[in-house]
């Protein structure tokens, strides 16, 4: 009886354990971004590929496309209707990307995207198919709060009213959408590796070299492709076995379910697979143009990140960070609180602590030697060695710790930028 109850408890935990929705939120935004940009770039070809008088006219769909179990809104509209659906698709995808509107916006985006894909089958590649699979999993997932405008508004209102942000850990969703996504990834990789293994060129090590020489895809000149061809057997076998290894997640997952393996060990293996996948798809993206496939895979990887993974990634990137950086700000100023909120939203590595210098404890602890007048004039950043940076220079130092601003950071060291930046900072601080 006890065994049966603990077994059902484990089953319940397997499907309904609450997990962070951050990964799925990021995946949703990435899905919206990739689909939006892809479709936007097709604007000149909308009537060619999807219009009633395009390459595939409406009356020919029955001869060319499958007749059973197929649905596309485009079957029922003319030229203007096609443009209207296109406008609806772009609008809804943009809303999905920034998290505007409730879940019905995602429903509209997915249904219209499916319509375009089901009509324009001749244009589809693996990335498009993968996008549809992600769209479906997002649609059935019950969580639609993370990275949304509504959530941002709620948190801003909370800060305005109470001065405090809501902890990020409150965002959670059940485990089963993650299970669906993971299963989909396992199917893709395992079936892909089996398909490859059945080909003689993958087994004899020449497949990658041939791929690098395909002028439809490669970004390399034939000479460089020739030089890199010696890597073909190694890369080919790495591709097959790193993809096949996704099947091991089933076995390890079963062992974890039975208590033979810890959940952390399972997650470490999953992160190793994600790293191999990132290496593989990143290389494909750099060396070849095969549409959106690599980017869509990265979007799916975001959805596979759970609380433990975010924690492990942070630990790995924070190995040299002994204590947090302290941002001393004016806690009585609305603009400053909003700025701090914006910075906290970008503090993905959890390296920064924000302290209002109007709090006597904070003042005494973090800035005992700095006058209130000086603190009031500009933001102060206390570094790990106890030294301080002020104003623009504090912001510039912070950018190295905020991944979203990493690309901006080197630009702030270009000669002259600090002079303009310091003046701009002073102007804003004076008028806050």
């Amino acid at each position, binding site marked *: 009886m006890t065994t049966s109850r603990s077994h059902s408890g484990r089953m319940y935990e397997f499907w309904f354990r609450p997990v962070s929705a951050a990964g799925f939120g990021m995946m949703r935004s990435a899905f919206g971004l990739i689909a939006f940009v892809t479709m936007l770039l097709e604007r000149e070809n909308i009537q060619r590929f999807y219009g009633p008088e395009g*390459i595939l006219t409406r009356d020919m769909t029955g001869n060319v496309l499958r007749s059973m*179990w197929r649905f596309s809104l485009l079957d029922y509209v003319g030229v203007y209707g096609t443009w209207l659906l296109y406008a609806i698709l772009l609008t809804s995808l943009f809303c999905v990307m920034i998290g505007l509107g409730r879940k019905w916006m995602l429903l509209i985006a997915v249904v219209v995207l499916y319509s375009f894909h089901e009509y324009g089958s001749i244009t589809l590649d693996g990335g498009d198919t993968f996008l549809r699979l992600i769209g479906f999993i997002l649609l059935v997932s019950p969580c639609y709060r993370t990275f949304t405008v509504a959530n941002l508004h709620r948190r801003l209102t909370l800060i305005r009213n109470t001065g405090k942000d809501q902890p990020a850990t409150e965002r959670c969703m059940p485990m089963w959408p993650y299970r669906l996504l993971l299963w989909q990834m396992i*199917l893709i990789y395992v079936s892909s590796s089996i398909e490859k293994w059945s080909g003689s060129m993958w087994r004899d090590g020449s497949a990658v070299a041939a791929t690098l020489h395909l002028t439809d895809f490669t970004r390399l000149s034939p000479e460089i492709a*020739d030089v890199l061809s010696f890597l073909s057997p190694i890369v080919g076998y790495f591709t097959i076995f790193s993809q096949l290894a996704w099947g091991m997640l089933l076995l390890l997952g079963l062992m974890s379910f039975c208590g033979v393996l810890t959940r952390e060990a399972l997650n470490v293996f999953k992160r190793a697979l994600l790293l191999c996948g990132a290496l593989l798809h990143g290389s494909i993206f750099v060396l070849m143009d*095969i549409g959106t496939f690599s980017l869509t895979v990265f979007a799916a990887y975001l959805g596979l990140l759970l609380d433990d993974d975010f924690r492990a990634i942070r630990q790995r990137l924070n190995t040299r960070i002994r204590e947090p950086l302290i941002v001393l700000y004016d806690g009585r100023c609305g603009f400053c609180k909003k700025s701090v909120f914006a910075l906290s939203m970008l503090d993905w590595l959890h390296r920064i602590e924000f302290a209002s210098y109007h709090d006597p404890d904070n003042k005494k602890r973090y800035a005992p030697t700095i006058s209130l007048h000086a603190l009031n004039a500009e933001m102060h950043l206390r570094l790990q060695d106890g030294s301080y940076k002020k104003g623009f220079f504090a912001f510039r130092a912070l950018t190295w710790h905020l991944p979203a601003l990493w690309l901006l950071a080197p630009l702030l060291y270009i000669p002259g930028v600090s002079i303009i930046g310091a003046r701009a900072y002073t102007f804003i601080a004076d008028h806050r």
Partner: protein
Amino acid sequence: MQKIDRPGSALAILIVGLCLWHMFAVAAYLLPANSEGITQVIRHLSVPYVLSLSQWQKWDIFSPNPLRRNSVYRIERNAGDRWETAMIMDFHHLSWHERAKELKVLGRLQDSWKALLPDYLMSFCSRIPGGRGTDVRLLVATTILPSDLKSLKETAQNTLIPQETLLASVRCPRF
């Protein structure tokens, strides 16, 4: 961490059941289409569900063997006594945002939907300079890459002779 609303037993069973069905169906769809016996029955069970939800999938990119065909597509227009090149379509002549899709479409039409090639060519009539009311044709120059690694390492040095094929020809309307 804040707990989410725990679903009741009936709802939980329903959700798990639907998840298991979905996982089964998409996996069964990957079984070979020409399978026989029980695998054929399983696949037939999943096909309506998978296709209705647009979840069809086949992950055979660059497999079982990558294509070894390099193609340069060319549209020519009739200039009275000769054919003039009006447009070249390959990785270098197409813009970065359209080449993957355009070459994918051309490959698909060439391999599977040849009947659509005239319509495809017709869709370029308005883009070809002086194309209105003239005959235009679509050609492909194909070279086949070697399959062994030793020859592939020397592709740049070896001159591969392209084979040219006429894919379609149409007369553009005068509009």
